[in-house]
């Protein structure tokens, strides 16, 4: 197996635009403040954590393709470009074959809801501008256009665990030399319909939005660096198999963690929905970050934040290695290991 390096990371989160903002909030002690999101038909608003307006606004968001694009596309582009760093120019110049894997659970839910609402009220007047942006792969398409990248471009749909599937897909493309570099982005955007649905499963979970991006390349020079050393097989929540069993199998597939390493888990402040993950990792007494506690539940975006923070911690030398526990809400659990090699 060839070594896959994580060359760059990027993030947009309720803490702000960029890695620095995420770094401060994701591993912190206190949850970020939440905001109210009105829900038609209710007096009481829903509590969420939104991405603040960027200040300054990233230059890439001024592109014509993003002028009418929904938030999720802006999150994807900003985080991906941050992760890509200097290689952006190489891609645009056609000197670097880039792959793109976007992972999401809900996709462009705001425009989908708005468009359907228009259809319900006056179908003939529903906006033709909204509809094309509702497709799951619209953010990946905008990103490719900005980077002039005509290479492989997948949008994968699934729960938080699908971010691990995205990383494995990217690693395969790299190892098969289909691409020279590959972006893996997890992203979501908020809408009241999502927060309304989440409340049916847990009143304590605060939804959030944003994106996290990892930029992968093969270690051609042999110099090493922060590396993606393992992605477990997905442990699917099949009928008759408990969630705890799935997470346990995921953990068993990962190399044993040593003292001094970091566990980046998916715990929120919701014991009922967190129970299985809590039990599987209860014996881990080392360093543990739970970014969803601080940032909120951003589905695949929060899986990406977990991974980005783990990479950041290893890259900064805070930990030799990190394990990311990507426990999905209704499909699968995957595990990721990141090491400094």
């Amino acid at each position, binding site marked *: 197996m060839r070594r896959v390096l994580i060359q760059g990371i990027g993030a947009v989160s309720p803490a702000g635009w960029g890695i620095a903002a995420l770094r401060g909030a994701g591993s912190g002690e206190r949850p970020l403040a939440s905001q109210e999101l009105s829900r038609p038909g209710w007096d009481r608003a829903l509590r969420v954590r939104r991405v603040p307006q960027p200040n300054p606004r990233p230059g890439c968001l001024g592109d014509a393709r993003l002028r009418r694009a929904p938030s999720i596309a802006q999150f994807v582009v900003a985080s991906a470009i941050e992760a890509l760093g200097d290689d952006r120019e190489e891609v645009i110049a056609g000197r670097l074959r880039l792959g793109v894997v976007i992972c999401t659970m809900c996709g462009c839910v705001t425009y989908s809801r708005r468009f359907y609402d228009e259809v319900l009220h006056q179908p003939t007047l529903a906006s033709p501008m909204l509809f094309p942006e*509702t497709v799951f792969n619209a953010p990946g398409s905008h990103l490719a256009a900005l980077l002039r990248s*005509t290479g492989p471009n997948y949008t994968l749909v699934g729960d938080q665990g699908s971010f691990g599937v995205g990383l494995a897909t990217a690693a395969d493309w790299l190892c098969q030399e289909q691409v020279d570099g590959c972006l893996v982005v997890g992203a979501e955007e908020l809408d009241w319909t999502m927060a309304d649905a989440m409340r049916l499963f847990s009143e304590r979970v605060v939804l959030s939005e944003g994106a996290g991006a990892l930029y992968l390349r093969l270690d051609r020079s042999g110099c090493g660096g922060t590396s993606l050393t393992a992605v477990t097989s997905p442990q699917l*929540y099949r009928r008759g198999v408990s969630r705890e069993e799935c997470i346990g199998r995921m953990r068993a597939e990962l190399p044993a963690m040593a003292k001094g390493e970091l566990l980046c888990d998916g715990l929120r402040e919701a014991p009922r929905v967190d129970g299985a993950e809590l039990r599987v990792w209860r014996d881990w007494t080392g360093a543990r970050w739970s970014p969803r506690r601080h940032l909120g539940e951003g589905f695949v975006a929060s899986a990406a934040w977990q991974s980005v923070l783990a990479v950041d911690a290893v890259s900064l030398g805070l930990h030799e290695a990190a394990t990311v526990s990507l426990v999905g809400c209704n499909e699968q659990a995957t595990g990721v290991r990141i090491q400094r090699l």
Partner: protein
Amino acid sequence: MVTGAGVVTALGVGWARNLEGFRDGRVGLRPVTWLDVTGRRVSRAAEVDLPDVMPVTRLEAKQLKRMDRGARMLLLAAEEAWRQSGWEAQAELPLVLGTTGAGMTLGEAYYRQALEAPHRFRGQSIRATHYQAQRQAMDLLDAFGFNGPVTIISNACASGSNAIGHAWSLLRAGRAERALAGGYDGLAQVTFSGFDVLQALSPTSCRPFDARRDGLALGEGAAILALETASGARRRGAEILGVVAGYGMATDIHHLTQPHPEGTAALAAMAAACQAAGLGPADIDYVNAHGTGTVLNDSAEASAINRWAGARAGSLPVSSTKSSVGHLLGAAGAVEAVVCLMALREGFLPPTTTTEVIDPICQFPVVTQARGAALRAVLSNSFGFGGSNASLIFRSGL
């Protein structure tokens, strides 16, 4: 190797009915009954008649009850492919699905209830979970007793081809011995209205590559292929329906919905599929085009085929079977893969029956009437919003 195939379209449920329909050049379009299309520009689509009784699988009655239209079509197609393959329950079996809408009708129902009865929650949690694509995938795992991994690709109208191509890549890389792959999409208000307001739907009839073409027709359906390595299939003496020989993908960055006028990404996808298959245009005996019937798609695709095929274009039969079953969005590539397998196996060219005046941009013969032909290798194109372009090449399994 393809050792099982299942298909559901407006022409019917199952390989046999669809084979008969495609060979006869039947058109499955009719007035829409399943959706309220009052006030729309267009009110026809290729609707599927779902059977009253679903096939017996390991699913419990409540799981079946919770499925929406698209999920039922998916289950029907998967059951046929599974039965044909002769596979039994097994632990590791990758499932790769393509879809654009998943259980969208459940999402629509969720929204309507949330607005109309904001304090009534009955059924909402089921709708919230079952509209998601992963639910349909998990139901397939439960239905047939296998354990994934699951990959769900949503690359708009190329999703079905991407799913088959991705599964083929997994087998080729030695990641698995077998995989189940395909696509599905049921008609829903969002998609029907979306294409209607874009004025992409034909108010007359869907006529791919016709000089007077005026839009596409929507359809619904599903198709699933059981894929396995040549050694695995031969070892158990499985019947071979055909061979996936190549897969290519490329991204068109011209515009979110409009292809590059010269079909540059389409050309790149076809070339990449050929390279993967070790074949050239001269080796391809038939192209099942994306051929939606829109002005822009067909001219871009024709331009791409002309350039890709070169001198071969003049004698290369091309057709679009969307004239018969409509555009199946996330299922289109998978259904058209099954059409290609039918053509290879049964030795015929599936027609574009509605086309009358062929657009002079087509330097290739457009097949407007079914006819017998000995085919060795065929190519299928699928293109989607966002510039997703995918091509698959199939060879005869004989």
